[in-house]
């Protein structure tokens, strides 16, 4: 258990389209996390920022941007970019410094302001960049990939449009009880199924929006937590692994998978292996989890995650959903926060927001969305260019 670190405080700025500078959201989240930890900014030894590519230079140097905004204190700084997994990688770098005895208490923060509509690639003619080329040569958007996974579930496992809509209905209901969620609106199956088709079989209400938002987490050594007389939620594992060659699932933003002609494909898919690495490090298994926060970029993708994080065998996710196991009150609630369906994605903040939710749930502070008796939880996400993460926390 030598690898544990403690979560001393968490804080978030509500998700939405607020039209403000991302730093403002981040500072709100930082101050809430500091208050939650019972600390002042001057107590923080390192600030670890999750970077966003969308807010100019300040976004690229996120750690320093927040350090300056909070007031230069001489704290060390670290900044991480790993697409959607940026927040988890920032936590992991902070955790490494604590475990290496380089620091006792670290503030991790991510915040974003996002544009409207589909996420589009950076401007200019960029013929060597697959993220640019996929739009130019095929009109291949992010929902394209989500839709390919969804259709495959239908053809292989008998998933239905109703199943995908039911995930949205569940997560929207969960999000009603989350003050940090962007959307507080219940949906019926019919409303979801009547929303416009975007990328068949996925409809508008089943594809996550982009949002402004911020989340912050104060982590510290177990010894530091004891000195502050806290029995903290612990981070048991942080998985930030890359895929294993050949990566045979088509993934954003690529045109093709790796070839399995010369090298046999690995036993576990990339997303399976992200969670597997976290379970191994934590010394825990899927059966030990009380809840999960997974990246429902589309409602159908949540079903893939049930299998990727080991909640059920391949092909059984629809059954798990239909049995009500993954709603609050069920055997293993998934996305009790409301998930991306209720938040929309604020890229550098999202993996941190997942950890905030685990923390509130494991402390029993999640209000009307509380998973009763929660003792351990897992997060999972993936992003562009072979990034992904999974964090396991326990009481």
């Amino acid at each position: 258990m030598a690898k544990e670190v403690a979560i001393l405080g968490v804080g978030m700025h509500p998700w939405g389209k607020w039209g403000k500078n991302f730093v403002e959201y981040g500072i709100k989240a930082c101050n809430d996390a500091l208050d939650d930890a019972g600390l002042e900014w001057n107590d923080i030894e390192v600030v670890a920022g999750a970077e966003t590519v969308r807010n100019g230079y300040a976004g690229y140097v996120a750690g320093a941007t927040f350090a300056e905004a909070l007031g230069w204190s001489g704290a060390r700084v670290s900044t991480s970019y790993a697409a959607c997994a940026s927040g988890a990688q920032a936590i992991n770098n902070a955790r490494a410094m604590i475990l290496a005895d380089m620091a006792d208490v670290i503030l991790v923060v991510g915040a974003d302001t996002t544009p409207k509509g589909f996420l589009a690639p950076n401007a200019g003619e960029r013929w060597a960049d697959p993220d640019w080329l996929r739009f130019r040569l095929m009109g291949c958007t992010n929902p394209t990939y989500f839709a390919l996974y969804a259709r495959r579930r239908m053809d292989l496992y008998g998933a239905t449009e109703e199943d995908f809509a039911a995930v949205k209905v569940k997560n929207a209901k969960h999000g009603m009880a989350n003050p940090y969620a962007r959307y507080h609106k219940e949906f019926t199956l019919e409303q979801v199924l009547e929303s416009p088709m975007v990328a068949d079989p996925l409809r508008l209400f089943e594809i996550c929006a982009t949002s402004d938002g911020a989340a912050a987490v104060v982590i510290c050594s177990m010894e530091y937590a004891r000195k502050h007389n806290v029995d903290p939620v612990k981070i048991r594992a942080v998985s930030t692994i890359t895929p294993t060659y050949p990566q045979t699932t088509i993934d954003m933003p690529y045109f093709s998978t790796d070839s399995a002609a010369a090298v046999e494909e690995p036993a576990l898919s990339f997303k399976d292996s992200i969670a597997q690495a976290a379970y191994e490090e934590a010394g825990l298994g899927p059966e030990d989890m009380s809840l999960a926060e997974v990246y429902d970029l589309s409602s159908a993708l949540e079903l893939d995650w049930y299998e990727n994080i080991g909640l059920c065998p391949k092909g059984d996710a629809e059954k798990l959903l239909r049995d009500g196991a993954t709603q609050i009150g069920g055997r293993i609630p998934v996305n009790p926060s409301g998930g991306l369906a209720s938040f929309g994605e604020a890229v550098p903040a999202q993996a941190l927001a997942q950890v905030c939710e685990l923390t509130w749930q494991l402390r029993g502070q999640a209000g009307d969305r509380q998973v009763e008796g929660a003792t351990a939880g897992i997060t999972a996400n993936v992003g562009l260019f072979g990034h992904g993460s999974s964090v396991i926390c326990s009481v």
Partner: protein
Amino acid sequence: MTEKNVAPSIEGWFTTGDTPHLIGTQCKTCQTYFFPKQDLFCKNPACRSTEFDEVELSRTGKIWSYTEHYYRPPEPYISGDDFEPYTIAAVELDKEKMVILGQVANGVAHADLTTGLAMEIVVETLYEEEDTERTVWKWKPVTD
């Protein structure tokens, strides 16, 4: 009215003619295939080769999955005033054991596709410039 020139939308990614192929590379050491072409370093972690042969990939494969798009995608996709829904398929090449994306040929209905269906490469217009038709590879059900 003069005929427009016909030219690929990107150089060196596919051949044209009656039986077009995608152009990939194959590592001279470990025989792994790549598309788009990889010619600087082999991505097989057990191989340090920097030498590759340019190869025509097989023309046929089976559908891994597919989707139809109902909204105009953002730039740099080029779409005219008369936007029509379009279909994209992910097709697994039998020999190379890799999945490659492409739009589905004009006139093929989304409803006619299913996972596992045999597909082949064709070359069709992607968009038109003032005096040039720009082409791209597309997937089309195999008809025998």
